[in-house]
């Protein structure tokens, strides 16, 4: 096994990975910006290296300094966490060129799945349902009209270089299309330096369902079931995730999981990855994108399967086979995660930072906390506002909701504003409790009465 791993990330996910390494008796190197010298990931790691000033670009996105940090500390592998360099194929390539193992899929797979059009094409050839639309880039107005009429309005015009909700434009009629097409190209050029767009049918009021996959170097590809991640804000940021996606039939969950495995096999995947789908009310599902990395919400899958996804990633990267077969994956109970952020409900949920006066995390049976904060910690203003992930497990969804309710009531963070009150509103919402959620749930069912 690796002797030493560098964690090229910060916050709760760096802490999560360091804990896994400690349990595997692997030494850890934390990297940090000058703003993060007091951070928990720095305190918990065996060694730490300062890699730059506060700005992300000069520190956590500073590939040369991160690889140099691995070099001077003798770390044999780099775990990129999520975000930051985790989906930059050039970083994965640079690691390999410098003889440091990148804990993730091969660079060419990251690149292939990072481009929307090529990911869509790969899905199609793997027999994974894709949203009706053009199989590739739309060169001009005429072609756009033809495709839109074929798949039927409303449609989305999407930037091939886009992601996470950016570079998307809705069109409802033939009349709107030519202008929208030109504007989408212009925007895309401005935002991503690439004007290419494609057209997809808009799936109305979908659920966001995603499948967790694991693949090793020996051709084994499995899925660990699916997650329900429909509770999202208008910027498509997830707030609450669960596993399993118990509101949709088990047979549909299985078919989605199997489709994700087919796609991973087709693309020659390695490591942990997530295939995201839109599921409509008729139970039809459509490939959306593949995240070629660890996902924020991976813990809910861990709690129902007993599989430690981070340890699997490390073992796979070292060249070991998967520790479980598809048949051995058993699902037990229900898990829910709430993302606790320092987003201010009094200020339209704008991120805030400051000194955390005190923290009280809930404890007890079926409660898992993933967090980098502690009483007295000063959250830097430069980074993601996530303070903690509160994750519960219970034998069924109803009991999991009851447990999450008591945990949210017990949890207290003073000194900075948090979204705990919003999470309480979500978890107590009658539509949420019935499992009637789509990606429009938050805007329509929770926010409609104002902030």
């Amino acid at each position, binding site marked *: 096994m690796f002797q030493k791993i560098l964690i090229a990330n910060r916050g709760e996910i760096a802490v999560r990975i360091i804990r896994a390494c400690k349990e595997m008796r692997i030494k850890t190197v934390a990297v940090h910006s000058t703003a993060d010298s007091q951070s928990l990931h720095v305190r918990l790691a065996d060694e730490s290296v*300062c*890699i730059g000033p506060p700005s992300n670009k000069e520190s956590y996105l500073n590939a040369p300094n*991160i690889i*140099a*940090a691995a070099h*001077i500390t003798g770390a044999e592998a780099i775990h990129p966490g999520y975000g930051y360099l985790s989906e930059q194929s050039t970083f994965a390539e640079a690691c390999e060129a410098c003889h440091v193992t990148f804990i993730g899929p091969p660079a060419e797979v990251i690149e292939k799945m990072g481009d929307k059009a090529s990911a869509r094409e790969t899905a199609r050839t793997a027999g994974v349902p894709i949203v009706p639309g053009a199989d590739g880039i739309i060169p001009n107005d005429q072609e756009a009209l033809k495709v839109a009429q074929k798949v039927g309005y409303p449609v989305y015009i999407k930037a091939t270089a886009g992601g996470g909700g950016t570079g998307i434009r809705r069109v409802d009629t033939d009349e709107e299309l030519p202008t929208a097409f030109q504007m989408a190209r212009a925007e895309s050029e401005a935002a991503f330096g690439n004007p290419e767009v494609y057209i997809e049918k808009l799936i109305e009021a979908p659920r966001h369902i995603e499948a967790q996959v694991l693949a090793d170097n020996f051709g084994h590809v499995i899925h660990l079931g699916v997650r329900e991640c429909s509770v999202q804000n208008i910027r498509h940021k997830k707030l609450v995730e669960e596993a399993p996606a118990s509101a949709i039939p088990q047979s549909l969950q299985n078919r989605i999981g199997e489709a994700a495995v087919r796609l991973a096999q087709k693309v020659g995947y390695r490591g942990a990855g997530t295939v995201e789908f839109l599921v409509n009310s008729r139970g039809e599902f459509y490939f959306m994108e593949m995240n070629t990395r660890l996902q924020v919400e991976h813990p809910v899958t861990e709690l129902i399967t007993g599989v430690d996804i981070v340890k699997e990633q490390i073992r796979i990267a070292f060249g070991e086979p998967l520790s479980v077969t598809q048949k051995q994956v058993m699902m037990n109970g229900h898990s829910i995660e709430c993302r606790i952020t320092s987003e201010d409900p009094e200020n339209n949920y704008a991120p805030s930072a400051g000194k955390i006066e005190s923290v009280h995390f809930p404890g007890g049976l079926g409660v898992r906390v993933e967090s980098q904060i502690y*009483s*007295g910690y000063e959250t830097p203003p430069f980074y993601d506002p996530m303070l903690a992930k509160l994750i519960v497990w219970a034998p069924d969804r109803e009991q999991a909701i009851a447990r999450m309710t008591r945990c949210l009531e017990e949890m207290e963070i003073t000194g900075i504003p948090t979204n705990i009150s919003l999470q309480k509103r979500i978890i107590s919402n009658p539509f949420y409790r019935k499992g009637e959620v789509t990606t429009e749930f938050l805007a329509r069912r929770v926010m409609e009465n104002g902030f």
Partner: protein
Amino acid sequence: MKESLIVEVERLVALVESHKISEITIRNDLTRVTVRKSPPGSSVQRSTELNAALPSTGADIVIAPVRAVSETEQASRYTITAPMVGIYHHAEPPVSIGSVIQKGQVVGVIETIKLMSDIISDRDGVLDEIHVEAGMPVEYGQPLFIMTEIPS
């Protein structure tokens, strides 16, 4: 403030007052306390800083050099820090204590994976202290040289 901390600070102040010491800093993960002797004639200043508060596993006690440093001298001191992560190498020719450094002069080199990058002084000055050796790994912001600035 914790009573124990107040007591600690009082003992530090007494220590500074009664000895030939200009400054004591006690730092642990919970707290950093610096007690600095003021210029003669003025009263003793105390500066305490309560930092982020994870429990500590131990405390470093740093006692600064006894040499008195005047306010103006302090202000003209300048630290050259590592601009990137890597292995430090001496410049050619190497600088040494007492060297006169010119703005723009290469004072050292940092080797990253594939690249040698020069460390350049952006001021004129005289080199006072060298905190790095050839072959030593350095992190971003690590103090390498301290010099006394020569106003241009």
